[in-house]
């Protein structure tokens, strides 16, 4: 049987295993042009080419200036491509009076999780405006994907208290802290709390850190994400396929882990 690394070396579509991208966006971004088609249609074309069955997705517009309009874009993508996009409702804690209403609306519409971006919204993850989000997610047993970075706003260590207080919510540490100090913190938090997971996209990430995360937490804790179309998804795709890990572990990372978490939601 041909292994995943060999398939990647040949540029083959990886269509015999489950691949779910747990960290994707949609649309354009202000400070650099995105040349590929960042619409749902364009994303599906590349997902099909690589063998990615679905994405957990939030709009660039939502993590930028307008979370409500961004969520509308995602709703349309979910309707146009059923089963390919799992909506992550983005909220902005700087609009506290609109958050719960937005969450309730979007979960009724079929969104399956919540996306927060403390850095672009410039609001610390420990701030009180996020409390209703944690409570909502706890009640729904929902996934919360947060952008994390090694800083004072959303460092992985800041999620420890939240994970402890809200054991039913499942926290995906987006980028796992983004830089090596962040990776180390993220590993520590994920190793300690059952409901914290390590999502792996980012410019500084590598197969080395993937191996560290698997060995220091568990192969069940590491989650594939790409930041598509912020980044070209073929980068993280290749990092996993070429990583010095067994195919069984790669399969968990690429899809089985997030599928298991989704089933519990």
């Amino acid at each position, binding site marked *: 049987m041909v292994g995943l690394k060999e398939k990647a070396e040949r540029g083959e579509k990886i269509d015999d295993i489950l691949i779910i991208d747990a960290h994707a966006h949609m649309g354009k971004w202000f400070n650099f042009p995105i040349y590929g088609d960042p619409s749902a249609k364009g994303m599906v074309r590349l997902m099909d080419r690589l063998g990615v069955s679905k994405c957990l997705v939030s709009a660039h517009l939502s993590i930028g200036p307008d979370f409500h309009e961004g969520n509308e874009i995602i709703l349309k993508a979910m309707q146009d491509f059923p089963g390919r996009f799992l909506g992550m409702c983005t909220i902005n804690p700087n609009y506290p009076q609109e958050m719960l209403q937005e969450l309730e609306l979007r979960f009724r519409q079929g969104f399956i999780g919540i996306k927060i971006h403390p850095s672009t919204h410039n609001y610390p993850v420990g701030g009180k405006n996020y409390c209703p989000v944690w409570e909502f997610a706890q009640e729904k047993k929902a996934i919360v994907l947060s952008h994390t970075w090694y800083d004072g706003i959303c460092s992985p260590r800041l999620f420890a208290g939240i994970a402890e207080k809200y054991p039913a919510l499942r926290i995906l540490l987006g980028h796992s802290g983004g830089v090596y100090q962040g990776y180390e913190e993220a590993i520590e938090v994920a190793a300690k709390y059952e409901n914290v997971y390590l999502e792996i996209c980012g410019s500084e990430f590598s197969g080395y850190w993937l191996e560290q995360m698997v060995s220091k937490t568990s192969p069940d804790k590491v989650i594939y994400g790409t930041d598509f179309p912020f980044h070209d998804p073929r980068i993280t795709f*290749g990092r*996993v396929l070429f990583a010095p890990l067994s195919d069984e572990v790669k399969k968990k990372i690429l899809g089985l882990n997030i599928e298991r978490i989704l089933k519990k939601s």
Partner: protein
Amino acid sequence: MLGKWHAPKLYFDSARELLSEMDYHNIEKALVFHSLAWQYDPDTGNRKLLEEIENVNSKGMHERLLPVFVIAPWNTPSEMMDGESTKEIRTRAYAVRVFPRDQNFLFSKWLHPVLEFLEGIRMPVFINYDQVDFRDLDKVLASYPELPVIISNTGYRICRFLFTLFKKYKNFYLETSTFFSYEGIEEVCKKFGAERMVFATRMPFIDPGGMLARIIYADITEEEKQLIARGNIERLISEIRR
């Protein structure tokens, strides 16, 4: 890059380990410089680089590692760059790297004797994106049209700078290691040609898997992939005037 690093601990630091990574990823040759030449002293680091490459001198392994010298002006007591340095570069280097921001100089016409020398021998110059002001880079590319300048470690937010310079200058190239722009590689091929890119990994800060897959799965022709993977850098090396 070879050598140790202040932080973080890199996932390898020796020539032997680099070769092992290259084997795992089917990479035949690599242009390589030394961390000490960047973060301690160019001359010491360049010497150390040559020693480390020589130390893997078995079964032709050292021929897979092609030395890249880090250069900085006024590193000798007497001249901006002395005769010994230029001779070493001419005879042994496959490219040079400059770190003007970290090593406190300007990559500009201030460096005229050095840039004139490098242009004269068609020596490729790598420079990291965060080491240069693009207005200076613009002027260097204009003033030294036969000097191949390769922008390096760019990230994915660079295209508005990058494409402007691609359009203006034929002697401007991109190494791909952190060029993660969604379909950015395809766009460069379409607008400016695959000839403008050279494959790179940024080992040992990150590993090659991501960029390998990016090229293998790119929506470009096999010929374009071959140019990016090896053809372009081989051509640039072949044009060096020893």
